């Protein structure tokens, strides 16, 4: 694990992990994400990409959640590493 500058969540590829650093400012979206357990510090993995390239499916806290590119880019992560297969 190596520290990198903050990057948007949607920059991650399938099989890559990150730690959430900041959530979007939009209060509604933030509330909805928080309700699913996404808060700063949560570990998140990209599991799948939709056939059309958007949205992506993210795995965190035991559930698989689809997020659109435009929403995921407002979520910043601080670490990035590949999951061992």
């Amino acid at each position, binding site marked *: 694990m190596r520290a990198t500058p903050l990057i948007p969540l949607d920059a991650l590829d399938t099989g890559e992990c990150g730690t959430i650093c900041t959530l979007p400012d*939009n*209060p*509604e*979206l*933030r*509330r*909805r*994400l*928080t*309700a*699913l*357990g*996404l*808060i*700063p510090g*949560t570990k998140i993995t990209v*599991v*799948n*990409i*939709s*056939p*059309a*390239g*958007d*949205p992506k*499916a993210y*795995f965190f*806290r*035991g*559930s*698989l*959640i*689809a*997020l*659109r590119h*435009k*929403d995921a880019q407002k979520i910043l992560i601080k670490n990035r590493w590949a999951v061992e297969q």
Partner: protein
Amino acid sequence: MSIDTKKQYRIFSAVLAGNPNVGKSTVFNALTGMKQHTGNWPGKTVVTAEGHFRYKDSEFVLTDLPGTYSLNADSPDEEAAKEAILYGHPDCIIVVADASSLERNLNLILHILEISSKAVVCLNLIDEAHKKKIIPDSRKLSLMLGVPVITAAARSGKGLDKLTAAAYGVACGSIKTTEVKNNYGTDTETAADTIINALPEGLNSKRFISLELLNKQNRTEFLEKNNILFTPELKNAIEKADKILSEYDDIEYIRSQTIVKRSEEIYNACVYLENKSYNKRDRSIDKIMTSKRTGIPIMLLLLAIVFYITIVGANYPSQWLAQLFVLVEDKLRELFSMWNANEFISRIFIDGMVGTLGSVVSVMLPPMAVFFPLFSLLEDSGYLPRVAFNLDKYFYRSGTHGKQALTMMMGFGCNACGITGCRIIETERERRIAALTNNFSPCNGRFPTLIAIISAFLVCGIPSPLRSFAGAAMLVGVIILSIFISLAISKLLSLTILKGEPSSLVLELPPYRRPQFFRTIVRSLADKTLSVLGRAVIVAIPAGIIISLLANTFISGKSIISYVTNFIDPFAQIIGLDGVLLTAFILGFPANEIVLPIALMIYLSNGTMTDYESLEQLHSILTANGWTTITAICAMIFTVMHFPCSTACLTFYKETKSIKWTIAAFLLPTLCGIICCLLVNTICHCLMILL
């Protein structure tokens, strides 16, 4: 609690809350013996259902709340759940949680426990969790939450007796629950305490109310809803609290973060993972179902398989039923002639009523009876959210919500359900677009019409083993067309009268679950198919009688019905249909299932043939009445795109409370259908002239 003096029963009110996809409806059905349809996808329970069950000397009135992830009241669903818990003051809250993804579920549990600790947690799907080697410690969990925790597998009925016992204990007070506080930090706690002291005596959920009052928004509305007087004392306390928290900009966010952290703590303390990669199987299925190369082809293939089975499986019963009705009609005819009954009356009774009923049952019932259970199996397996995932980008481009894909799917079952299902969509603009375009999904009542037209007309020249396959492929084509139209109209709406940006999508892709084949098939046959058929029969009998009355009453040598059909025939011809068919569509407003049977009855009353026993005969009846391939195509287009049935219109009105929008929902698909049919008809005729 109240007491029914007549029956000497204590009556308790209970609510069933929980995340979507945790088997809440299964628990509800198992407890109450009711048959609410369950499904493995978010937003299945959109209408709160109510049922009863008895335990010892008490009767419970159980309300099934919509599945939600939070009580933020962002969507109408969440609002309903929150209001039932906060203002309904239930004697017991049963929170259903998925034992295999407890961490996320704990969020809602902690939110609910903050409002009331008169609760029981039901750790459902424990069998599935054990299979994944996820072992929750329910005793420890119960200690940490302060309420009883019962493990259960509602599908097989395991643990439900313990659940009712615990619910009874909590409701009557024999089980003492403790309020466990989430610590939000010194400042928030001090501020909340200040408000608690100023709240009136005897108020329920004081701590929760004071925490909610820390939010600067909607304070007065919130107080009004809780019937709390805004006394100077309270006003003072709130001002004080605001001062304490002046440095924090979003208290709600702090609260929900704290709850997430607390959930994590509890989860880590109470759940043992013996196998860290427990969801490997799901990941590999997803790799096939949603990958770039195979996602869309598999989706189409699955659809094609469903249709293929429907066409093949419906063919034989359809013929048997048709032959049975012919037999019944012949016997009746003999009986009538034995009685020397009036020719007019026997025509109305036999050709009109029994004939229409016969074609509803023989043409429409078999495809419905095969399609609906298959569709339910797909629903239960957890595949439908994957379809939404695969198609979302197109919905995004059309300016709509990704969950519209889900409501669209519901529409393939029933448009009224689809329109109600739009409650899962959070913003009003997108909800309206989804509801307006829902009717473009041909429902279960329209599929048989499409199947009959395709089998009798479009694929009849193809040799038999390939025929059903070609039919299935054509139906897939119709579905693709309907999705395309639905997207195009959504785009049009979001560019014009419902302008706006698409909101964000947060869509759970639930774990795949092996559907319970037998139960799903029996249930969807017994509940859905028969109830839909019942409605069709109720409409078909009077419609059959009225039409045969009109067809057998002659004014200056012509039947009344021919005056009607001749009158609208010129218009119908322009859009590639004929007067009879358009009349049938109009008369089919109460139930789409009777469109084709009615058209057949009118055709038959005009001609020499009185009966049909197979699809081949259907073909000759239609050709004898001037049908061409173009008529068949236009009839199919109009079947996909015309006014919603009366039930769907009524549902739309109930959901929007606006006559204006209901009229829009009526006109929009009708106009689209007329325009498309007009275009197809004109282009085809021009081509024919040119060639």
